[in-house]
């Protein structure tokens, strides 16, 4: 049985810069996998390649045994991959509920004619969209804020709306790009519970995060990137002790001094 998502030898160049250099890793079903590495290591680029925003120079992305390399982002979402963004990209002037409803887009069908005549099928679909959106908001404990405009929420709440919006698309795989960034310890703790809640829904999670406590207590496996290459992979406890990883974070001198 092959993994849910397989990254095969992904390389991507922007002009002269090699952002990813032959990166390969798998994400197994129902696991939480974390991607860590210093700033500029290429973590967000990995997300952008998976979700189709960038097309890799070479290599393949296989999702549920299907090659999705170079597909348009909306087609990839349809296949069951949803994401959040490192620098929040909500639809700021829309209500929280509308934000999440838009997340349901790829599971709906109603078009222009549906909009105009609102036949029973359309009304039924709207009802399902509403239910699904409220459920997604419930997962992140934001049902009470559904009528607020997204831009009026606090930073931590906005991050949670992004998660709800991603959940509304019924994903199989959820990509979280630094979900805990800018949150205080309490908010981080709540977020951790939420991620576990999502995991119990049977959704596989791939996350990029800088907060090591967060990463170590949540993930089943950690992959480490540095300068566009994968330098380590394994359970959190092992990766923590890996000399190369410590060198990547703290510099080679520190490792030499310690040993």
């Amino acid at each position: 049985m092959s993994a849910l998502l397989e990254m095969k030898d992904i390389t991507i160049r922007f002009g002269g810069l090699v952002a990813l250099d032959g990166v390969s890793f798998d994400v197994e079903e129902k696991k939480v996998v974390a991607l860590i590495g210093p700033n500029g290591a290429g973590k967000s680029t990995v997300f952008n390649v998976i979700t189709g925003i960038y097309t890799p120079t070479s290599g393949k992305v296989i999702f549920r045994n299907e090659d999705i390399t170079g597909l348009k982002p909306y087609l990839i979402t349809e296949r069951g991959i949803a994401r959040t963004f490192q620098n929040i990209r909500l639809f700021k002037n829309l209500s929280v509920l509308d934000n999440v409803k838009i997340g349901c887009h790829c599971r709906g069908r109603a078009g222009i004619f549906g909009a105009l005549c609102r036949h029973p099928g359309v009304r039924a679909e709207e009802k399902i969209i509403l239910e699904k959106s409220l459920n997604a908001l419930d997962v992140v404990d934001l049902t009470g804020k559904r009528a607020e405009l997204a831009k009026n929420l606090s930073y931590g709440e906005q991050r949670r709306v992004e998660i709800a919006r991603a959940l509304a698309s019924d994903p199989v795989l959820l990509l979280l790009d630094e979900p805990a960034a800018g949150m205080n310890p309490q908010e981080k703790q709540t977020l951790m519970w939420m991620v576990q809640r999502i995991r119990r829904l049977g959704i596989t999670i791939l996350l990029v995060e800088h907060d090591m406590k967060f990463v170590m207590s949540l993930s089943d496996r950690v992959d480490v990137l540095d300068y566009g290459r994968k330098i380590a992979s394994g359970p959190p406890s092992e990766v923590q002790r890996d000399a190369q990883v410590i060198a990547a974070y703290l510099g080679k001198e520190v490792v030499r001094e310690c040993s």
Partner: protein
Amino acid sequence: MLLQQLVNGLTLGTTYALIALGYTMVYGIIQLINFAHGEVYMIGAFVGLIMVAVYKVNFFLAMLVAMAVCVPLAVLIERVAYRPLRKSTRLAPLISALGVSIFLQTLVTLIKGSPNPLAFPQVIQDTVYVLGPVKFSTIQVIILVVASLLMVFLQFIVKYTKVGKAMRATSEDYETAGLMGINVNSIVSFTFALGAALAAAGGVLVGMYFNSVHPFMGVSVGLKSFCAAVVGGIGSIPGAMLGGIFIGIVEVLGVAAGFDTYKEAIAFGLLILVLLFRPTGLLGLPIQRKV
């Protein structure tokens, strides 16, 4: 014959380029399509005309006076109509620019008494120089020389002076330039001033070349020069020069080839073609999607 058309196209094109520079510099710095720029050019032409016809001054002096009038005018327009809107939606300053444009057209029509064109007095002895198969008129020579000098001067300012460096920094990143201690407001004013000076010179030169000055002359030429700026790659100074000359030559050749009734559409056709194949213009840098 073809060579002659090329010379005519080049002459027309350099005037487009002079005006296009104002569009491109302003866009480069505050991402605003300054629709009132065509009106600055029109007022430049009128001031030049008045100086020559009423005060009987020398043509070059008339051009300098036109510049001296248009520079504060453009700075004032920026101060009143654009600066308060710098942080609002993209469309607000655009509408404001259109308002300024309508205002100035009407104002000039009112002062002048009618929208009809005025003839530009023959101030320069128009001799024709023959160079092999090509004929140059004095006016053409003046346009080419004056426009080239102005463009060289502009390049000098932008490339080699402190204020030019500040302009480049501001167009690269408005916010950061401000944080680095550049007074961005005065840089924006300076940019408008430079653009206005070039447009005023362009207005006087074109008024003389086509022997006609009227309150709505800025509309068509303004739009075409703007096309030139976009074709060359908006925000790029060499791009505006290249785009202006390119559009001028194609327009003249198109008319010569019998498409004279389509003259007004040639620049726009070219614009759409260029944008479809090079979405940021001939010399514009490709946009990288930022996530």
